[in-house]
């Protein structure tokens, strides 16, 4: 009996030693990082989360392929690069696109991640105790960015699933929302609210954030896509009347590092070199010639070059050489001339590339130029289009002429132009006394030469309608308007979302 008692006592001691520690013993806290329950608590957390949304915009990420859809798919550009490199881009150029094309997945995943981050912040922002004015601004910025991501997704893919809050597991299975509703229920309301919440300018250390003027400019664009002309005019006039933006003196100031923040820029994606993780503009490398350590993608077509006007003496619209490189012309550095063998089309575009004197070959992907999403001349042209479509052709003509005048006057202000000092005769004459339909053609022409390689062309072609598109793609035998208004939803979404 004694022995058994001792054994039982030992057993009880052992068991009782373990039991109270039980649940606490199994608690292991996350170290060095926070869970989402612990984050989104302070004003600083809100700023960190907001910057995380801006992070998706960067072209340091080679998954950011909106240029493939905006430029290469259009009549402005061909794939470029050596044959066989990035063949999937070539398939998009040829309108031979299946759901397993890698570019579809890259854009889809990246931009939906941006939407997910915006939704997460907007879900939590009201619960954070912070300065009310800054809270409203943060909401405005998050909504602007969410509208940006939905803008690209709806233009590339058409009917898409929409999330405006963080979805639960069941809500992840979501059917597609039709294009018209994405504009009317998501993009336009987000931009309208953003315009009300944001300040007119951000300066100093906040330079680069979305402003209310940017929201109005974006709204003008959204209303154009949905053909709501008078609302587009109204939004564009808000930008014009603010007096905060104007056309740069010289067109190429927008694409030069020293003047990249001139007043024409309304909203741009910014880049910074030598950061870890990298924030340099990868396009400095992707679109540059292989001879300079680039890849040579997004090569301009002869069709694009032919769109530019010349004088009777053969002087080109200066915007041609500000946009692309061609034989006989200086290529960025003053001592380097463009070699047409650098490209299968004989041309390369230069809006995102800096001279080797600024960004050497060895750090080619550390470009610091912006991607300008909205600039004043785009707003002017949108205003002209909106006015013209409402029959206000004379007024519209004035705005188109502002853009042409600026381009023409490069000869007065850009000392590096050969023939600087006098404007060549009949270069880019003002448009007068045109009918609505001929001004419409003039505006479309002006948009193409003014905004070339800013990733807008394909979406402009599609919104101009079927006959324009068929004409633009007459050399692409696989293109049909009904099939390629939008591109297919990628296979990885079809594999996991069973409501599509």
């Amino acid at each position: 009996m004694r022995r058994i008692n001792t054994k039982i006592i030992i057993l009880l001691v052992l068991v009782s030693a373990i039991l109270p520690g039980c649940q606490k013993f199994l608690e292991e806290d996350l170290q060095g990082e926070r869970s989402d329950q612990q984050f989104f608590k302070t004003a600083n957390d809100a700023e960190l989360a907001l910057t995380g949304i801006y992070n998706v915009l960067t072209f340091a990420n080679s998954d950011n392929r909106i240029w493939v859809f905006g430029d290469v798919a259009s009549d402005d550009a061909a794939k470029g690069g050596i044959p066989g490199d990035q063949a999937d881009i070539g398939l998009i150029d040829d309108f031979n696109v299946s759901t397993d094309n890698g570019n579809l997945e890259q854009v889809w995943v990246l931009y939906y991640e941006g939407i997910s981050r915006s939704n997460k912040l907007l879900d939590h922002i009201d619960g954070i105790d912070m300065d009310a004015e800054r809270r409203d601004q943060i909401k405005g910025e998050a909504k602007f960015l969410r509208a940006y991501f939905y803008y690209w997704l709806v233009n590339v893919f058409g009917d898409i699933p929409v999330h405006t809050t963080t979805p639960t597991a069941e809500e992840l299975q979501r059917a597609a929302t039709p294009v018209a509703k994405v504009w009317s229920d998501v993009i336009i309301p987000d931009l309208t609210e953003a315009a009300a919440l944001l300040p007119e300018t951000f300066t100093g250390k906040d330079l680069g954030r979305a402003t209310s003027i940017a929201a109005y400019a974006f709204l003008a664009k959204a209303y154009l896509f949905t053909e709501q002309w008078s609302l587009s005019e109204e939004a564009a006039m808000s930008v014009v009347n603010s007096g905060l933006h104007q056309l740069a003196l010289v067109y190429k100031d927008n694409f030069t590092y020293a003047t990249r923040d001139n007043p024409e820029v309304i909203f741009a994606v910014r880049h910074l070199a030598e950061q870890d993780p990298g924030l340099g503009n990868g396009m400095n490398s992707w679109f540059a010639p292989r001879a300079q350590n680039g890849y040579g993608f997004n090569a301009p077509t002869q069709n694009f070059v032919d769109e530019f006007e010349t004088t009777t003496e053969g002087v080109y619209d200066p915007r041609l050489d500000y946009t692309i490189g061609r034989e006989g012309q200086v290529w960025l550095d003053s001592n380097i001339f463009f070699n047409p063998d650098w490209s299968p089309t004989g041309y390369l575009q230069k809006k995102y590339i800096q001279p080797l004197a600024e960004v050497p070959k060895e750090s080619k992907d550390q470009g610091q130029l912006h991607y300008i999403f909205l600039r004043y001349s785009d707003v002017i042209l949108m205003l002209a289009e909106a006015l013209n479509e409402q029959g206000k052709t004379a007024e519209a003509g004035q705005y188109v002429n502002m853009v042409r005048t600026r381009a023409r006057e490069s000869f007065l202000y850009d000392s590096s132009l050969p023939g600087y000092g006098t404007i060549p005769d009949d270069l880019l004459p003002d448009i007068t006394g045109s009918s609505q339909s001929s001004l419409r053609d003039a505006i479309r022409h002006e948009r193409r030469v003014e905004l070339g390689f800013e990733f807008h062309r394909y979406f402009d072609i599609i919104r101009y309608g079927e006959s324009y598109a068929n004409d633009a793609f007459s050399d692409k035998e696989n293109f049909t308007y009904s099939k390629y208004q939008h591109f297919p939803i990628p296979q990885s979404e079809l594999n996991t979302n069973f409501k599509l």
Partner: protein
Amino acid sequence: MGSGVGFTYNWTNTLNYTKIFNEKHNLNVLVGAEAIKNQSTGHGASDRDFPDQSPNMRYIGNGLVLNKNAYEYASGWALLSGFARVNYNYNNRYLAEGVIRYDGSSRFSPDNRWGAFYSGSLGWNIHNESFMKDLDWLNQMKLRVSVGQTGNQEIGLYNYLSVVSDGYNYPFNNNNNYGYAVSSLGNENTTWETTTTYDIGLDLAFIDDRLTFITDYYWRYTTDMLIPVPLPPSGGDANPPYINAGEVLNRGLEIELYWREERSGFKYEIGGNFSTLYNEVLSLSNGRPIAAGRIDDAVYATLTEVGYPIGSFYLYEMEGIFQNELDIFTHAYQGPDIQPGDVKFKDQNGDNIIDQTDRVHVGSAIPRYIYGMTANLAWKGFDLSLFIQGVAGNDIYMQVNQDIEGFYRGFPVTQRYYDNRWTEEGSTDEYPRASWIGSSNNKKASTRFLESGSYARLKNLTLGYNFKLGKNSSVKSMRVYISAQNLLTITKYPGLDPEMYESDNLNSENVKNADLAAGIDWGTYPLSKIYTVGFNIRF
């Protein structure tokens, strides 16, 4: 430069009680508890662009780059278990055992930490029965039946939490600003994965244990399978959590046969084992198949679907090569740029278009048969041993061929592709024309790159000699030997090594679901043949 420390402690207590009643009833009871805890920490720093490369200047802080990296981390996990086992046998004839254990893990959320696992078995030592007493050629005949459960918790340490990470920066003005975002999602409902194995077996031994034969048939059900089921990318790109996602069955037959003999100084033992394996997914959490084995953007080589083996290959089926324009015209529509010389894929559903619906289950990386053979011989100081191992019935998707025979970029091609590629009508039905434009069709993930992975390999062959030593020598034993590992392999697999001892999928940065994507060869480094000469001496 970095360092890490991990510390694990394990505290186990058991209490054992044995009692024999009436000489024939043997009872043993074991009760115990175990607590295991691990704490790991680490830190490190890195620097670049050293202007002075001499060894006494290579220190962190001397690099020219503005951003130096420093990091530190800590993590831990814990397991707590209680268990009890009862063992009973009657006169060494009838055997019974039962085990119960209760385990808790820190990796699950507080509501789902604990799992209970039961086991039980019965055995019948038939050779000890009275009616078997006269069969002196039969040494052992034991019939066994058992059911057992084990638990699995091998998932991330903080799987139930959604984690916010840094590094999502953006420059405002010209300054870098820090940005954070959710980088992986957690799931609070995840709990233990349970594997329940039912087994029936027979152990036989004959003629003074010279011939032994063991056979088993087992059914192994894994339920609440822990899989990081991929989520729709329209919800964001954060890593998906492990969830309890389905049920899979493995079943098979195992046979083992050995003959051991020793006569007049010659001692030998020869034997082999053979087993079959059948694998089938029984259910998936929302009934939907899971694509895995990512071999390119939006291209997945495997599909885990109910009714098929786990991670079964899901590919286009190559029918041959288009020989002429008429061939292309009469076949289902495959794309606008198809030319003679391109790969022809089978239209599985008869809809006259080749698209994603024409992919089918075509094979599995899981072998159907696994076998091995060993032999050990000893005679007058010499000893010889060999070990052969092999599998059959498995497939390997040779991803590396897609790069070196797919001809879609400026990579070198294999000799066999160069020699055998299609050049004109009737030249071949196996290898397509070398065309960069055609490659997007020809390199599609299909049975073109699927190979049989069966192999038999002589894993080990050793010949040794033990020296005869005098009784009073100070040397206790002395042996010299030569040995070869992986000496000989018989296989039809054209890649480097069908054994693929290490799954390359684990190294591919884009693979998120390695469990569902075995058998993809990215150029696995092959096992080496190793020749060893050795000399052992013992004092």
